[in-house]
């Protein structure tokens, strides 16, 4: 199958939450919030073995949910990242070999100023925020994750989208030397959003979690997070962002259009043939909890879909 590596995240690298929160407090005190925008990044090649690098300072976000955060260990060992294997434990075991430096993201298509961004430029493009979001997987489980990033809109504005651009396509890194060669999906992984969804302030260009650089298995070094859609819409390890006129076909839609629609908004009223979507298991909890419309972000995003039949545009 895959190149197997031992699960090499030493327990010492997993930050207990109490410790992590202490550190955050310490950093906040230290920076006093004065150096807004000057994100510090100690840039070493990220491998699973190297201690994760801290990202600071972080601006708190009004979008944070108040629910308990899912422990770091669960967030970083229970992943869907099919390029590194289809079992939940595979990405943590196999993604360490991916080199996340140097890394450039090409932004192209219907834009006034197409260009490539180096990951270091991306980190300095806008103030880094901590965004504590719910994550709802189409497989009926969920987490609460403190992501680090800034609105994707900040990046898109830099390239000046043209009037004809209606959609944004995201293309993930694919390297057959270290990733799954079996065509489980049509590689490279592709996802897409409508331009107004991509420009929405909730849509996060994400570079970290729990105050640290993204672990590889979570989509390092840069991914998007779209909290009101099922998790697979949030493409990982992005190398190309393309603005287009027509609705792009995502890898999952291509694989099974009847089950994975373009919108894939979290919706407890539209069932999936494999999973009942009215409830979800929050990782770490025993009882299931009800799934919320748009994953609880209806106040912010419902207007994007006014007048649309969400049974049809699932």
């Amino acid at each position, binding site marked *: 199958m895959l190149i197997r590596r031992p699960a090499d995240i030493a327990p010492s690298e997993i930050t207990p939450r109490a410790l992590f929160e202490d550190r955050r407090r310490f950093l906040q005190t230290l920076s006093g919030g004065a150096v807004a925008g000057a994100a510090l990044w100690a840039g070493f090649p990220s491998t699973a073995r190297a201690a994760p690098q801290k990202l600071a300072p972080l601006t708190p976000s009004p979008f944070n949910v108040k629910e308990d955060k899912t422990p770091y*260990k*669960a967030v970083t*060992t*229970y992943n869907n990242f*099919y390029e590194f294997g*289809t079992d*939940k*434990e595979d990405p943590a075991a196999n993604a360490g070999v991916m080199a996340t430096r140097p890394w450039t993201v090409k932004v192209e298509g219907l834009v006034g100023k197409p260009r490539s961004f180096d990951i270091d430029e991306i980190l300095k493009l806008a103030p880094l925020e901590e965004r504590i979001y719910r994550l709802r997987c189409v*497989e009926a*489980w969920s987490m609460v994750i403190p992501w680090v990033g800034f609105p994707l809109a900040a990046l898109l504005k830099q390239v000046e989208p043209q009037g004809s651009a209606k959609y944004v396509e995201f293309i993930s890194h694919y390297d057959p030397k270290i990733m799954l060669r*079996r065509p*489980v*999906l049509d590689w490279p992984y592709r996802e897409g959003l409508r331009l107004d969804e991509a420009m929405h302030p909730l849509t996060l260009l994400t570079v970290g979690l729990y105050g640290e650089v993204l672990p590889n298995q979570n989509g390092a070094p840069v991914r998007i997070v779209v909290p009101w859609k099922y998790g697979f819409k949030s493409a990982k390890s992005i190398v190309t962002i393309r603005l287009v006129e027509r609705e792009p076909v995502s890898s999952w839609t291509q*694989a*099974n259009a009847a089950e994975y629609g373009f919108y894939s908004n979290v919706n407890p009223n539209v*069932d999936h*043939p*494999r*999973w*009942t979507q009215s*409830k979800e*298991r929050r*990782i*770490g909890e*025993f*009882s*299931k909890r009800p799934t919320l419309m748009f994953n609880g972000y209806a106040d912010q995003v419902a207007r994007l879909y006014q007048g649309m039949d969400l049974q049809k545009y699932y």
Partner: protein
Amino acid sequence: MMKDSPPRRPAMPPIGPIKVALFLVCLLPLAHLVQAGLTDALGANPIEAITHATGDWTLRFLLITLAVTPLRRLTGAHWLLRLRRMLGLFAFFYASLHFTTYIWLDQFFDLQGIAKDVLKRPFITVGFAAFVLLIPLAATSNSFAIRRLGGRKWQSLHRSVYAIAILGVTHYWWLVKKDISEPLLYGSILAGLLGIRAWWREVERRKQLAGEYMPKAKLGRKVIQIVPK
């Protein structure tokens, strides 16, 4: 194929100790699961891990049970047949754990939710059918039931295990999102186990067709051997 060669009969090993050892071996997957549970080693989603482990072992025991007849025929080790009942009952044992995990840990006795699942999610529908069909087999896996039903009736009832195994593989096939490599593997093994039976049956049928000239007694014995008691 191995026409009329006299069946090799390896010496009969001590069946009692073998049964005890096999019984303990069959409990190892459960022991492993319990140990993982106690040491917090079931991962981020323990209920899913238990569902998967018990489902995997149900299917594996079904396939192992179905392998007994071909193995016996290929090796001539007829005593293997005396282990089949235990293997089949272990398939049912793990199926019961799997079903209980679903009813209790996954759905927490939400009968409405369970009914909806069974009716609306195709993979649950076929898994449920497989489990329901297993119940009469488990209930008649004893000498008393065989005597009461009579060999022939008992045998035709227990042939539903072929359908159960097919439903089991279908269940797995339909529940995976995209990567069908594992259900494909189990499906291929099942196809092999059923295929070899079909092949032997066909060979036998041809023999029978040509067999007007064969001594009746010999024919009769062979026919019964296709589906051993």
